[in-house]
């Protein structure tokens, strides 16, 4: 057998390969669990089925999907333009820090709290955008590879957050924990359905996804982004400014990731703590690949990966397994996804 390049990438395989990858990742994970002495079916059930078997579970799923979808939407835009922004994590944390600081500064039970809350959310998006702007500046002005600079900025953002919650933003009335004061009830995002934790941010993330899809598929800007991503030479010939596209996608991604951050602070957490991210910015990269850059795909992929986070926590509670299992599963998934991608561009033909 040998490989022959397809003239056009196969649509069938594009749809099939994520499913194959998910199946292979689950099989490998099962083998690993079995090797470690856990019944694979029980583990898979706890990971992927038990967490969403009731309304509460579904609300938790929407809650975890919110930051993933927002980050993935921004990253899809970047990757389409050929900008390897690995910094959604840092942009998310910058959003947490800036948005959370504003929310804490305006923290009050009464007054125009809707406006206070809006300011905090806007500040969070701005914080994320500024963090991404640094990457854009370093790439367009100083020709630094965005891969490395965005990674470095992730760490800087993380340590700044840790410093802030252990220092200037630490709750003076709290115990010795490195945590800020709790936000007032009025400073929190309203829930989608009373009594459940999923909040209006989920609706915002769906809106962001719809807007992205419209921009990418229906506008000149979307076309420019694709051209720059496919061929910089072609973009130059067409007179499209590569710099402008780089700035546009990075600022959009930063703002969306920052939004995800501030919506976690003003959503389920309600204060600044050291543990605001479970690595959403990294997992969102897998969401983009698994979702094949398609809005519906992104939605399904975000649901699966959000589920792996919740399932990981579930495993920790039920079996005492570390929740890092979620990360392991995600890494495996991306691995198999990349391997099966070959079949969308090539076909196997018998050797003559």
């Amino acid at each position, binding site marked *: 057998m040998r490989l022959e390049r397809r003239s056009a990438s196969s649509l069938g395989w594009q749809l099939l390969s994520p499913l194959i990858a998910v199946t292979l990742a689950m099989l490998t994970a099962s083998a690993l669990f079995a090797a470690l002495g856990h019944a694979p079916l029980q583990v898979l059930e706890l990971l992927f089925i038990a967490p969403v078997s009731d309304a509460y579970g579904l609300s938790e799923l929407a809650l975890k999907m919110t930051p993933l979808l927002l980050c993935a939407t921004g990253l899809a835009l970047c990757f389409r333009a050929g900008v390897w922004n690995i910094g959604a994590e840092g942009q998310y944390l910058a959003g947490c820090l800036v948005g959370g600081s504003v929310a804490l500064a305006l923290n009050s039970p009464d007054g125009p709290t809707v406006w206070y809350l809006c300011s905090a959310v806007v500040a969070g998006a701005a914080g994320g955008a500024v963090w991404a702007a640094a990457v854009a500046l370093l790439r367009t002005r100083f020709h630094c590879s965005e891969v490395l600079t965005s990674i470095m900025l992730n*760490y800087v953002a993380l340590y700044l957050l840790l410093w802030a919650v252990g220092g200037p933003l630490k709750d003076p009335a709290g115990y010795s924990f490195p945590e800020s004061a709790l936000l007032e009830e009025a400073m929190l995002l309203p829930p989608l359905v009373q009594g459940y934790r999923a909040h209006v941010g989920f609706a915002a993330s769906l809106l962001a996804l719809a807007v992205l899809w419209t921009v990418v598929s229906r506008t000149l800007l979307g076309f420019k982004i694709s051209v720059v991503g496919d061929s910089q030479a072609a973009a130059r010939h067409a007179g499209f400014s590569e710099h402008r596209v780089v700035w546009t996608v990075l600022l959009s991604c930063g703002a969306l990731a920052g939004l995800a951050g501030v919506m976690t602070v003003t959503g389920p957490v309600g204060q600044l703590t050291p543990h605001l991210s479970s690595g959403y910015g990294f997992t969102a*990269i897998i969401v983009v690949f698994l979702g094949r850059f398609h809005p519906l795909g992104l939605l399904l992929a975000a649901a699966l990966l959000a589920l792996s986070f919740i399932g990981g926590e579930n495993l920790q509670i039920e079996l005492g397994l570390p929740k*890092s299992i979620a*990360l392991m599963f995600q890494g495996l998934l*991306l*691995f198999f996804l990349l391997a099966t991608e070959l079949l969308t561009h090539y076909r196997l033909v018998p050797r003559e």
Partner: protein
Amino acid sequence: MDLIFIADLLAATLAATVPLALCVTGVVIGERSGVLNLGQEGIMLMGAVCAFMVALNSGSYLLASLAGAAVGAAMGAAFALLTLVFQSNAVATGLALTIFGTGLSAFLGEAYVGESISGLGPLLPEALRTVPLLGPVFFGHDALFYAALVLCLLVHRVLHTQRVGLMVSAVGENPETAHRLGLPVLRTRWLTAIIGCAFTGLGGAYLAIVYTPLWTEGMTAGRGWIALALVVLAGWRVSWGLLAAFGFGFISISNLVLQGLGVTIPVNLLATLPFVMCLLALVIVSSGRRSEREPPRSLGQTYIKEN
């Protein structure tokens, strides 16, 4: 600040240099042949946790070091399989390795958190170690330290002065031409990917069984990423890479320096320093790029063999 304090600082810097130096050397091996593997952080963590497990259970530091290198090599082989055979995107594949390695190392190492091993004792005889100033700085280290140093210098020699090194560069600069000249492009890249990652795994092993010596989740603290940046800074050369690793070894013990000077800076602010310095270094190198500092021309690109 007296001489003894400076000697202690230098010794501590040298010890902190080793994990970075091994990883930098590994990255140079891969990247000179065009292999861009962003999985260094995950590979280093896997090397660290496996070496620690072996050291604790067998008591043998040699076995533990070999285990770290072997796990690194295995992950390098996985990377090569995906990027060279399945022709996957190098950036995404490296990220998958980092995510997978971070998760699996935390999973494997969970039972080992809080366990401790004695670490390796000094290799050289007492008489050498007690030579004033020079003794504590250069002669007080463990066997793995000197082995790592020798390995890195050996790689420097092979890559920059031997025929094999030219072959590797030819493959990295222009794989199509290298192929037409009869060089085995894919086989070269398989080997450099595997050997390079073995170095990274060994770096992780040093961190866990000698430097700290213990295992904690995510204990590499970004060293894999820093190494990738240092290679750019070093212009893809082992010698400059070792120097850069020494510089960043010093930055990573800056808390000791400041303590010695009686300055207190919040530990988390200080922790941003290596990353900020990396950014600065990248800016300086990238904006004043000379021709010999260019990356290998085929770095990170998928190679499709002509028939």
